[in-house]
């Protein structure tokens, strides 16, 4: 009844994808630009039809129950510009008129904390306010299933946090969210489960913790040492205890390690043996970014 199953092939953007989103969870699609996230979303939203394969949501299918589905889905697209000349209230009222049921326009505006902006023109809102208005338009039909395509891209940290609160609020009410993002922290914070996409395929699937655990690394150590005159020999580092992988990139070295407390002293010993001084040292817990780098050898935001 509340499961989403799809398995379709789209030669260009999405290639034989198979996913199941469980009722009440927040499912994240993560991947670089051009990975097929948006196409996947648009197929689910009924905006694009898949070349093959099928989508089932809330027990309904697009070909037989499009009207019913649209009543129950909330959609926020990546770069919609709402009409600048209308006010916030007029915009929400317009969207509300399309749905049979749902909160009143004033309630939704209060929900996204735009009460004071009700009479302002959309063109005069800030980026974060526009994004919250877009969210209001997605929530105005009281959806069971919410699609959010990069909801916080281009927003400042405070505006992002406000939107995250809003999404968590919606999730807490037991409804389902499908979210795309290329921000790691966003995915880690909001999503129960994540599918990492690349070139139209899912290359990893699981909870954020599972995904991070799957690369068998707990920490990442980044440092720079030596210089053009005295290059650092990387191979001894790979032999060290608790080190899984070492990469060098633009003069800085990344070590994926399982045991930080053993790897760092070993690193310092090795550097002094090579006669090099450390110019920079950073460590962080392994993140989804590291998962992506491990799986593809590229960074998420390379493109």
């Amino acid at each position: 009844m509340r499961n989403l199953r799809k398995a379709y092939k789209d030669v260009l953007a999405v290639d034989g994808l198979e996913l199941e989103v469980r009722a009440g969870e927040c499912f994240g699609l993560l991947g670089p630009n051009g990975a097929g996230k948006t196409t996947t979303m648009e197929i689910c939203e009924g905006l694009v039809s898949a070349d093959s394969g099928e989508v089932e949501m809330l027990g309904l299918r697009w070909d037989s129950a499009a009207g019913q589905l649209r009543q129950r889905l909330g959609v926020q697209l990546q770069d919609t510009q709402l009409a600048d000349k209308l006010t916030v209230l007029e915009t929400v009222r317009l969207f509300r008129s399309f749905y049979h049921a749902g909160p009143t326009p004033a309630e939704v505006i209060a929900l996204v904390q735009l009460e004071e902006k009700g009479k302002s023109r959309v063109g005069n809102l800030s980026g974060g306010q526009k994004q919250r208005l877009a969210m209001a338009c997605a929530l105005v039909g009281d959806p069971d299933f919410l699609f959010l395509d990069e909801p916080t891209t281009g927003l400042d940290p405070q505006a992002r946090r406000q939107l995250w609160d809003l999404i968590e609020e919606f999730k807490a009410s037991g409804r389902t969210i499908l979210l795309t993002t290329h921000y790691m922290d966003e995915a880690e914070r909001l999503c129960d489960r994540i599918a990492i996409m690349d070139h139209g395929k899912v290359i990893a699937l699981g909870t954020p913790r599972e995904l991070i655990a799957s690369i068998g690394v707990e920490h990442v150590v980044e440092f720079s040492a030596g210089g053009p005159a005295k290059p650092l020999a990387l191979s001894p580092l790979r032999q060290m205890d608790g080190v899984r992988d070492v990469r060098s990139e633009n003069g800085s070295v990344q070590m994926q390690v399982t045991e930080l407390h053993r790897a760092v002293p070993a690193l310092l010993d090795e550097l002094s043996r090579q006669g090099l001084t450390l110019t920079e040292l950073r460590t962080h817990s392994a993140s989804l970014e590291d998962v992506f780098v491990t799986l593809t050898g590229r960074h998420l935001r390379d493109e």
Partner: protein
Amino acid sequence: MSEITIPDLPSSQAARKSPHASTWTERPLAQLTLVRFLEFTREPEALFWVFVFPILLAAGLGIAFRNRPADVLKIATVTPQLAQSLRQEKLLDVAELPAAAAEEALRNGKIALLAVPAPEGGVVYRYDDTNPEGRTARMLADRAVQRAAGRIDPVASSDHFMREPGSRYIDFLIPGLLGMNLMGSAIWGMGFAIVDARRKKLMKRLVATPMPRHSYLLSFLLSRLLLLVVEVGVLLGFGAVVFGVPVRGSLLDLGLLCVLGSLSFSALGLLIASRARTIEAASGLMNTVMMPMWIVSGVFFSAQRFPELVQPIIKALPLTAAIDALRMNMLQGASLAHLAPQMGVLAGWLIVCFGLALKLFRWR
């Protein structure tokens, strides 16, 4: 997970009110139409082009081509005898000049004609025969000279002047401008709004809601008809009050003609905007469609001036049909029954364009 500070989302159960009997103002069509209307009225440029510009144009042309009392023509002569004969004609302003000065005035165009005595009591008229004023002056001067010499006209004649409203240029112009305005505002109104919504992905966003698609298209037509009342009223009112342009046909018929015309042009606008993704592409298309009609459809001068061969094509254009019908209604008081051919042309454009637009329309 962090504590949530926002007020509770109305829970699914509580908020899913039974489809409440929504008042008509909460229906999608009413809301979409309202929004279109609001957007238009908040666009100062659009207000100018639709309401102010036609009035300025009508006022300017009306003043430039206003009917003046027949002009008095300036002529000159060199002898007092001739001058006296010529002064009998009230439509001539006769100056008696020395020969050299008279020659120069003629060359400069200050006078339309120079009358000089010829040997044996005759008169020579010197004037530019390609200039209508010169030819008129020749006829008037000669009549004055002949009558002064004792000619009696064999047939008695008298004049009856026709300066009634309805036969002046402004009377011809106002229906033309009305037709042009119906076309312009419908095509621009539809075209830009639709392409803009498509370009901003607003249309895609709307399509992702349960909005009935026909309501979206219908809302454009309805908001057009709302504006039409104002548009037509302003231009006709201006013509009637300032220039006394008559409306001899029934006002109801005139209203129906305007509605039909506006719907046809809106359908044309819809067709033009059905696929374009950019404003540039759309405005290029709009100009290509409208420009020829501005010229050949008889807005400013009669379409009859074009060769017989192309008349059937000109008559089949929607603007020609609209303007012809408006003129016949306003100036000749023709009823709708007499305007069947023009209404048929408009209805044909409406059906064909709307049908094609529905087939071609790009919803993304």
